[in-house]
């Protein structure tokens, strides 16, 4: 049966309620920092002003610390509370979600750094605009993934996966556009390669946001929706050690 927000704080053990609540709060804080770093990196990209980079760097360290801290909380809950059913699903999902959040943080930092490098010597405006536009889409996707986690909304989480497919398509067409720009102006190749890395980082953030939403669906519904090409019988064969 589906998990609801109210389910997290209705255990007989108030300590367990507090443990889960604290875990959830920390994940939300961490997600907030990732969103903020992505937003700030996109500001650098759009304005070609690198002033925010030191702040981004600082927040990035905090994000890393949160990953380690949340992992520790997860281990403690498993060891001391032996969570089952929806509790187990939430805890396991969170342990995977923080990994994706941390990776998103890394990519956001990478974007900030590359954009700062470009600030002194900006790439062609048309190419830059493409990256800013993809950046906005990705930031919106991340916001929706985090939102679905806040509300434990599996339906919204499912839409994140769908929206990521259009981001992937835009990424592909941006790559094609970039090769055109390179052919048109070979002197800009160095800057355009940096911009390519930014596109790549944005596309990866979209994938991580999708992973987060897939984990959320697992936590809420108990259904593993990863990898459309994997069948139930394939999984069972591996679990049961059948050839």
């Amino acid at each position, binding site marked *: *049966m589906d998990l609801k927000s109210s*389910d997290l704080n*209705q*255990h007989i*053990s108030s300590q367990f309620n507090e443990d889960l609540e604290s875990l959830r709060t920390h994940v939300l804080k961490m997600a907030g920092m990732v969103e903020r770093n992505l937003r700030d990196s996109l500001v650098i990209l759009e304005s070609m002003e690198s002033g925010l980079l030191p702040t981004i760097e600082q927040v990035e360290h905090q994000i890393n610390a949160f990953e380690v801290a949340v992992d520790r909380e997860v281990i403690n809950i498993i060891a001391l509370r*032996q969570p*089952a*059913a929806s*509790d187990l699903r939430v805890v396991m999902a969170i342990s995977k979600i923080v990994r994706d959040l941390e990776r998103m943080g890394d990519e956001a930092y990478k974007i900030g750094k590359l954009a700062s490098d470009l600030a002194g010597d900006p790439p062609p405006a048309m190419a830059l605009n493409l990256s800013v536009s993809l950046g906005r889409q990705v930031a919106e996707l991340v916001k929706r993934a985090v939102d679905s986690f806040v509300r434990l909304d599996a339906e919204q989480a499912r839409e994140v996966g769908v929206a990521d497919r259009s981001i992937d398509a835009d990424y592909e067409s941006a790559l094609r556009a970039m090769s055109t720009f390179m052919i048109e102006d070979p002197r800009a190749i160095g800057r355009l390669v940096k911009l390519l890395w930014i596109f790549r980082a944005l596309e990866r953030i979209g994938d991580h946001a999708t992973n987060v939403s897939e984990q959320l669906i697992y936590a809420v519904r*108990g259904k593993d929706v990863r990898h459309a090409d994997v069948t139930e019988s394939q999984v069972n064969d591996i679990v049961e050690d059948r050839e």
Partner: protein
Amino acid sequence: MDMTATMNDTQISAKEPSSVTNQTVGDVTVENPRMQAKNVQVFYGDKHAIQDVTIDIGSNEVIAFIGPSGCGKSTFLRCLNRMNDTIDICRVEGAITMDNKDIYDPSVDVVPLRARVGMVFQKPNPFPKSIYDNVAYGPRIHGLVESKAELDEVVEQSLTRAGLWEEVKDRLDQPGTGLSGGQQQRLCIARAIAVSPEVILMDEPCSALDPIATARIEELIHELSDQFTIVIVTHSMQQAARVSSRTAYFHLGKLIEVGPTKQIFTSPQHELTQDYITGRFG
């Protein structure tokens, strides 16, 4: 055991939301049933203790019955070898069959039935006899052996199967009551399997034991499941998770949900099952 006492102190904490329905969630049938219960009702006087429970017990499976105090899991367990016959005010309706024969049919003799469906209780209850005689008792009264040598063999086999032989082989003539709690419980399991039952019912077999003795019994349950069908009632959900392949959740006399243990403990379908196994009952 006085069942009326157990029934009286029940249901203090259990809630009765609208979600307690008559419909059991999950598949109550199995491909290869050893016993089948159909629409079983149990009454203690006016009290309707078990309401319309239908479930198959599969061959060589370990099935765990879980649920809050007073949910009827022990009562239902006791129906499976007519242990409730000993309680005057208890009345059982519906059908419980073993090999397609109703075990409540008037022609059924409960003595051989209880040899086929053995039982291990919460508190180890060895007879005030020697270790040897505790195990030899069943085969003797059921006339399963013809010679002393044969009986010796059954005793050794049963104690070995129960993982106790190495610890007691040099003191078989000493009283069973002199063993440690965990050893006594394994002696009771040896006594139960000495008559080659098909089904072993276990009513909270580890609740009086320490974690090490509990782990030994759980390992034993796992080993015995290749030969016997085991039905275990336990208050420890983690024990149910560890030893059983199927789990049945009872609530206020109804069978709420049945399913593979792995599914019940990761994605239970019914709200009440979820509340119970995640510790949300209040």
